C-alpha cells in the first residue's frame, strides 16, 4: 500500500467504483432533489422577471433614454444571476475544490475587457458613420408599434 493510499483510503465509498484512479474522494450523492427543484423555481422566476422587463419597454413605448438603459441593465444582471445558478448548482461547480473553481472562473474575467473594448469600437464606428455616410441618415426614426405582420 502506497503512502497516498494509507492517507486517503477511508475517504472513498466502500460500495462504489471511483470514476477514475486520479480522484481522491467522491461526493456523497445528495439525499434528495430539493436543491435541484429550488434552483428550477429560482431560474423560472428570474426568466419571468426578464420577460416582464423585456415586454415593459414595448408596452410602455419607451424607445430611448435612461429608463431604457436601466431596463436593459437589469435584464443583463438577471441573466448573469441565471448563469451563476446554472454553473454552480446544475453543473456542480460549487461542489468542486476551490482551486478547480478558480481555474475555470478566472479566465472568464477576460470578458470584461473583451466586451468593453469591442463596444467602444462599435461606438467609434457609429461616429464614423455619422461623419462620412452619404446616405440619408435614419436617425431617431420611431417604430410604429405592431404594424409589421
Amino acid at each position, binding site marked *: 500500500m502506497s503512502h497516498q493510499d494509507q492517507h486517503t483510503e477511508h*475517504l472513498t465509498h466502500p460500495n462504489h467504483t471511483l470514476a477514475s484512479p486520479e480522484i481522491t474522494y467522491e461526493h456523497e450523492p445528495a439525499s434528495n432533489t430539493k436543491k435541484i427543484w429550488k434552483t428550477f423555481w429560482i431560474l423560472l422566476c428570474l426568466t419571468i422577471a426578464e*420577460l416582464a422587463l423585456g415586454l415593459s419597454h414595448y408596452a410602455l413605448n419607451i424607445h430611448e433614454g435612461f429608463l431604457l438603459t436601466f431596463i436593459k441593465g437589469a435584464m443583463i444582471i438577471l441573466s448573469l444571476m441565471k448563469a451563476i445558478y446554472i454553473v454552480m448548482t446544475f453543473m456542480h461547480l460549487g461542489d468542486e475544490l476551490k482551486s478547480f473553481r478558480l481555474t475555470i472562473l478566472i479566465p472568464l474575467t477576460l470578458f470584461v475587457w473583451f466586451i468593453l473594448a469591442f*463596444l467602444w469600437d462599435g461606438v467609434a464606428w457609429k461616429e464614423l458613420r455619422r461623419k462620412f455616410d452619404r446616405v440619408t441618415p435614419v436617425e431617431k426614426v420611431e417604430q410604429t408599434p405592431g404594424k409589421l405582420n
Partner: protein
Amino acid sequence: MSTHVPAGFKWWSGGKSPYNVSYGKLMMWLFLLSDTFTFGAFLISYGTVRVSHEYWPDPNYVFNAFPFMGHANLPLAFVSLMTFILIMSSVTMVLAVHEGHKRNRYGVQKWLGWTILGGTLFLSCQAWEWTHMITGSHAVLINGQVEHIGSTIAANPYGPVVPGLTDHGHAVTQPGPVAFGGFFFGITGFHGFHVFSGVLLLVLAFVWTRIGRFDRVGHYEMVEKIGLYWHFVDLVWVFVFLCFYLI
C-alpha cells in the same frame, strides 16, 4: 457532502488529480471554457455591429408570432416557451446525473428520456421559428418599389417605417441593417447545432445506460460529462435569449 480530506492534505504532491476531477471531466470543462469564448466572440461581434448602427430592429416587433396563431401579435411568447423547454430539460438532466450518483439505472434512463424529448422539442421550435422568419414576407420599400421579402442572411425587412405609406393595410418599412440576419441565423444556428449534437450524445448515453454499460463499469460519470455539455447549451441560451430577444 460530508466527505472531507484531513487538514493539510497535499493536493499538489503528485500521483492524483490536484483538482479531484477525472481527466475526462477536466477536459470537458476546458472545452466548455473555450466554447464560452467562441460564443462570447460571436455575441460580442454582434454587439459591436449593433451599436455601430443608428437603427436596429426591436425584438418585440420581430419575434411576435406563435404557431397556429396566424397574425396575432404575441411578442416574445414563442421564445419564452423555447426558453422554458430548455430550462426544464436542464432540470431533467441534473435529475439524471443525481440518479447516476446513486447508481440507479432506471432513474437515469427515465430522466435521460425526458431530456432527449426536451432537446428535440427545442429543435423543432427553432425549425418553426427559422421557417417563419425566412418565408414570412413583409412589405419593404426597395429602390422606390414596394417588395415583399422575408428575413435571410442577405435581407432584413425590419427597418424603420416609411411615414404615410401602407400596403394592404400594413405599414411599409425601409430595409433594416443586413447584418441582423447573418448574426441571428449564425448564432442561433451555432447554438442549435450544439443542441443537436447534445441530443445525439444523450441518445448515446441513453442506449449505454439501457444496455447496462455503466453498471458494468461501476459508475455513471459519462452521464455527468454529457450533463455538463447539456447545461452549457442551456447556459449559452441564457445569453442568446438576452442578446437577441430581450435587449
